[in-house]
């Protein structure tokens, strides 16, 4: 054949092959008998271990498959939202961040667990995680593991300066930080996360909570109460950290990633961070400061209404409302939240369990020193505002809190701005 015919044939062949390929890829979705669990990356390897254990027990019935999601919780949330909007997606069980349940429940994307989690069941878990799963009078999942903001301090530096106990109030903290850093020649008195991101919201909320304030009215989540003297007092304290040079101005750019080296390389006397940082001390990444040199305490409290509190972090189990394996999902969740499995994950991954009973178990307490030291802190965690539009609220709060830390906005101004913008969001949402 001549060149023209050859070209015509190969063109048609190529087009045909492409169409076939596209049609073939159109299918997908989980194979029957397969339960898909989505969760961020697991550096410890304990999650795949537990899944293997479960799969062995349930050979021939159904198997669980672990689908790894982005480590950035914002990106993970985005992917889930995209799949939900497209009609449900293939994920059956979701390892969800504590700030998600209300946002998903409001759209009807996750399953109501109220009948599977009656009061008797709920009592077994810490109150903070349960609160984060509660929306509209119902409970939307099962708590898995938890996180709480705590105050880390260099026990040895405090002793050097003649102080034997950690500070109980914020003014005490500031005084101690300045004194100890001067006496011992440490670069920074106090470091925390003040950058414009979710962690910044956690920190800012902690200042508000410990001064007796709130963002939303606990009794009525549609009422914004952030413009109150207590909240303003809290934000004033946060701003005074950088204003009075207790913390470096750069904390307005700090996330957990910057806080870790600042404290664990010995450059700071105090630090606010999550429990995970304890396990990093003395490891090959951070050899300078040993675990014996640091200690943990509950966050200080402020005036006018001193309240022990810290922001709740952590992860829960949620079930996709579009899943057709809901019974199997419940089986798996029951397995993962049984004391034995929770303990395994707590001991091997040093993650804080949500079952109250495990906090009295000597094996758990030994494995995670932070539990022994921070038991009180964990009992007083408070969730961030529980609302279907938390995402938008978080954006506003992150921006304002970071601006307060930088000193660009006054606490009164920030509180007023947030009051109106949060009210706007709630109004727009209804």
């Amino acid at each position, binding site marked *: 054949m001549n060149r023209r015919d050859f070209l015509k044939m190969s063109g048609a062949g190529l087009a045909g092959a492409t169409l076939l390929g596209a049609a073939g890829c159109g299918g997908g979705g989980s194979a029957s008998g397969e339960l898909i669990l989505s969760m961020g990356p697991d550096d410890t390897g304990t999650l795949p271990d537990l899944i293997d254990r479960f799969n062995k027990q349930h050979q021939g019935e159904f198997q669980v498959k672990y689908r790894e999601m982005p480590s950035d919780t*914002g990106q993970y949330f*985005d992917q889930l*939202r995209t799949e939900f*909007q497209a009609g449900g997606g293939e994920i059956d069980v979701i390892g969800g961040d504590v700030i998600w349940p209300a*946002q998903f429940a409001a759209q009807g994307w996750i399953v109501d667990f109220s009948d599977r989690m009656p009061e008797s069941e709920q009592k077994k878990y810490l109150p903070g995680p349960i609160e984060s799963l509660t929306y509209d009078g119902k409970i939307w999942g099962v708590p898995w593991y938890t996180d709480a903001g705590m105050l880390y301090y260099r026990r040895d530096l405090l002793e050097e300066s003649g102080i034997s106990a950690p500070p109980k109030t914020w003014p005490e903290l500031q005084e101690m930080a300045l004194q100890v850093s001067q006496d011992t020649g440490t670069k920074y008195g106090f470091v925390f996360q003040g*950058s*414009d*991101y979710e962690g910044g919201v956690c920190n800012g909320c902690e200042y508000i909570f410990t001064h007796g304030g709130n963002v939303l009215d606990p009794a009525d989540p549609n009422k914004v109460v952030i413009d109150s003297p207590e909240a303003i007092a809290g934000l004033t304290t946060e701003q005074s950290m950088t204003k009075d040079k207790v913390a*470096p*101005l*750069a904390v*307005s*750019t700090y*996330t957990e990633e*910057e806080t870790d*080296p*600042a404290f664990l390389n010995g*450059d700071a006397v105090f630090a606010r961070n999550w429990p995970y940082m304890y396990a990093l001390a003395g490891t090959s990444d951070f050899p300078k400061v040993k675990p014996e040199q640091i200690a943990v305490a509950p966050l200080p409290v402020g005036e006018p209404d001193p309240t022990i509190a810290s922001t709740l972090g952590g992860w829960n189990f949620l079930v996709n409302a579009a899943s057709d394996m809901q019974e199997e999902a419940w089986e798996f969740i029951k397995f993962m939240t049984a004391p034995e499995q929770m303990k395994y994950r707590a001991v091997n991954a040093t993650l804080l369990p949500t079952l109250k009973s495990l906090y009295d178990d000597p094996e758990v307490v030994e494995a995670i020193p932070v539990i022994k030291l921070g038991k009180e802190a964990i009992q007083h965690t408070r969730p961030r505002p529980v609302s279907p*539009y938390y*995402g*938008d609220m978080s*954006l506003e709060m*992150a921006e304002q809190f*970071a601006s307060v830390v*930088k000193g660009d906005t006054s606490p009164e101004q920030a509180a007023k701005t947030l009051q109106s913008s949060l009210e706007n*969001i709630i109004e*727009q*949402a209804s």
Partner: protein
Amino acid sequence: MTTASREKKRRSWFKEEFGDPERRAAYYMVLPALIIILLVAFWPVVYSIWLSLHQATITALGPFVGFENYVEMFQNPDFLLGFRNTVIFTVVSVAIEFVIGLAIALAINRAFRGRGLVRAAVLVPWAFPTVISAAMWRLMFQDQVGVINYVANALGIISQPILSDETLLLIGAILVDVWKTTPFMALLLLAGLQVIPGEVYEAARVDGANVMQRFFRITLPLLKGTILVAVLFRTLDAYRVYDLFWVLGNRELDSLSTFVYEGVRISQLNFAPGNAAAVFIFLTAFLIALFFIKVLGMQTSAED
């Protein structure tokens, strides 16, 4: 022109284009590509504009609200800040890149040993993905490990961490962009320089023109086409800046595109203003391009 002659002109153009079987075949051959472009490029833009006239969210079209979204957008302080940052960034960085790029292009235009190597080496900053170089520079500006922050504070030029101050952050972003894209400008301009025949310079030298005169009377005018293309490309690129600002500022530096991203992807309620901002970017970029072509006389085809 009388109506009759205008009619005749129109009719003859039509006959000329579609009457001729060869030209008609050409149109048929171009038609599939044209349809694909319309579908892939035009349709989303038109739909975006249609969406921006409604109170849209990710899941629903919402009621028709006319230009309300645009009014809301112009009153949004984040948008205005982003717009201001973007304009300053575009003007300053393109100007600096042009000047330095031209200087580099003139320097490597003459043949010397190792010229090929220098040309390749000059392109290295541009070869890095923007996200990587932004993350790298952010580390250099950081307060704990950043060498630039350390030196600048030690020399007393500034007295605060670079990343905590919005103005310094913007200056840093301009710096990073100049570092990254000057080579690209330089190479584009170099290509234009190489087309200028050497005899023109010889003739000028014979006529007694000095360096400045040769540069302003010969080089620049003959380079005008290339300059306009290079500057237009860079201006549109800088106008759309997103990844540099997002990674360098870690969400704290606003531009037009970061406003769109925040509204459309992160926020759940700001979808409509975010979308309106995207349409705004498209329209203004279009106007900028139009300005370059019509007013500054940029050549768009060989027949001009």
